[in-house]
């Protein structure tokens, strides 16, 4: 699927609508994420940012259409979507019962490709180095890691199958400013290096600035403001101004 300028879209939503009982959380949202772009979704709590992510992932029912590389996403073809996709969850969502290396290579071990444990460990060690962790971490359980380390391992897991599309749900929530900054830099470096299309849900402007090319500010379930990340602080949008102002220390 391409827009009028001929730009190819990785993800596109058309009139996406999500309601809980009678309350509309996402209101006819039209979102377009071109290939290779890092798109940030920002907005106050409760504006439907994470719900938007769940709709795209097919984890919740919705009205409207979502396209992946021009194909309408339906229950039957979501498998193809997940194969090219990785995600970093807000709370890392590492599997408690598996070691770090088993977490990282989960998708590879359980896919049809069938790789040996020794190969999987090698891949895990390589990915751990990629996200700035030592190979000794490999055998640890997720509960033995700090919050920052868990995020890095979760990022390694998301990268394991070389995805072309990465989603990040509040990647720096619960981390101290220094760790947040290093996670932001890490994500930015990897996304740009591997030319990955990414969608970052965050309420943290520093994350958005560090990682994203474009930003959408969600207001009343729709697009309140859209523009380049660098233009965000100069935007003439009342709620966005108020939002950014309230976050300044």
């Amino acid at each position: 699927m391409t827009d009028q300028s001929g730009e190819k879209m990785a993800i596109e939503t058309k009139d996406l609508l999500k309601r809980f009982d009678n309350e509309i959380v996402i209101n006819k949202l039209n979102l377009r994420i071109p290939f290779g772009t890092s798109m940030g979704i920002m907005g106050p709590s409760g504006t439907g940012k994470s719900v938007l992510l769940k709709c795209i992932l097919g984890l919740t029912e919705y009205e409207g259409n979502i396209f992946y590389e021009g194909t309408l996403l339906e229950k039957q073809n979501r498998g193809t979507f997940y194969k090219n996709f990785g995600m970093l969850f807000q709370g890392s969502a590492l599997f408690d019962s598996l070691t770090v290396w088993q977490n990282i290579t989960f998708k590879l071990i359980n896919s049809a490709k069938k790789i040996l444990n020794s190969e999987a460990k090698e891949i895990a060690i390589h990915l751990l180095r990629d996200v700035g962790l030592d190979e000794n971490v490999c055998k640890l359980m997720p509960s033995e890691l700090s919050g920052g380390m868990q995020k890095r391992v979760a990022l390694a897991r998301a990268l394991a199958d070389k995805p072309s599309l990465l989603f990040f749900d509040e990647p720096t929530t619960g981390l101290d400013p220094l760790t947040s900054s290093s996670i932001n830099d890490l994500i930015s470096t990897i996304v740009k290096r591997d030319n990955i299309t990414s969608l970052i849900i965050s309420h943290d402007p520093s994350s958005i600035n560090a990682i994203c090319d474009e930003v959408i500010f969600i207001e009343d379930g729709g697009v309140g403001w859209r523009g380049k990340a660098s233009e965000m602080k100069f935007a003439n949008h009342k709620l966005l101004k108020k939002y950014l102002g309230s976050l300044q220390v």
Partner: protein
Amino acid sequence: MNWNRKQNLTLILLNALGNNIISLTSLMGSLVMFVSHALNRSLMPPFFIKEYGKQIVAIGWASLPVVGLTAFFTGGALALQIYSGGSRLNAESTVPSIVAIGFLRELGPVLCGLMVAGRVSSAIAAELATMRVTEQIDALVTLATDPIKYLVAPRIIITTLFLPILTGVGNIIGIYGGYLVSTERLGFNPSMYIESTFKYIELGDITSSLIKAAIFGFLISTMGCFFGFKASKGALGVGRATTNAVVSASILILASNYLLTELMFKS
């Protein structure tokens, strides 16, 4: 005025009844869909053999001590009770056969079922509910893995297959408990006791015990998986899922035990 009030009250009651019937029907519908999804998908590759192995250890092997101890003490107590009650009728000699038949037909499967419900159903519900609220189940989806196939199918299949084995072991230990108490405390002759034990046991007693156990195993794991998988709302949701799983599994075991007994032994 009085008539209107009565009419309003009737409408409120009917409304509440209707809502309850709708929610119960909806719950039953989603339960059936959930189980059929798990069982259908379990027949298709990939088979997640490691997960099945883990569940054999967690559900089968780790439940042996609790099942064994429960059966042993209950067998002993049963022998004492039957001896004490039987002495009023001069029927002390029935202790071996009643302990054996009672254990095989009723106590074995029901006690094992209830003990495993307390241990396994709660563990399954708590584990899956925690995975749900910490987004681990969502993570499975994004890693191109069907969470029902990966998490639910192995638990249901292994519990259904292994509760009969646990019950078989429990039956043997329970009957042995009765034997030990009878011979050591009540003065029964060991060889006579063993002879009377086997004299009245029929094949139907053993098969009914195992069939009951398999059905209880299915109910236990299904309740644990269903309530755990559908959990929400943080720690409160995890607690609620665990309670719902254990209570519903226990009630279903007792209710289905009655129905199965009617079905198997009515004649």
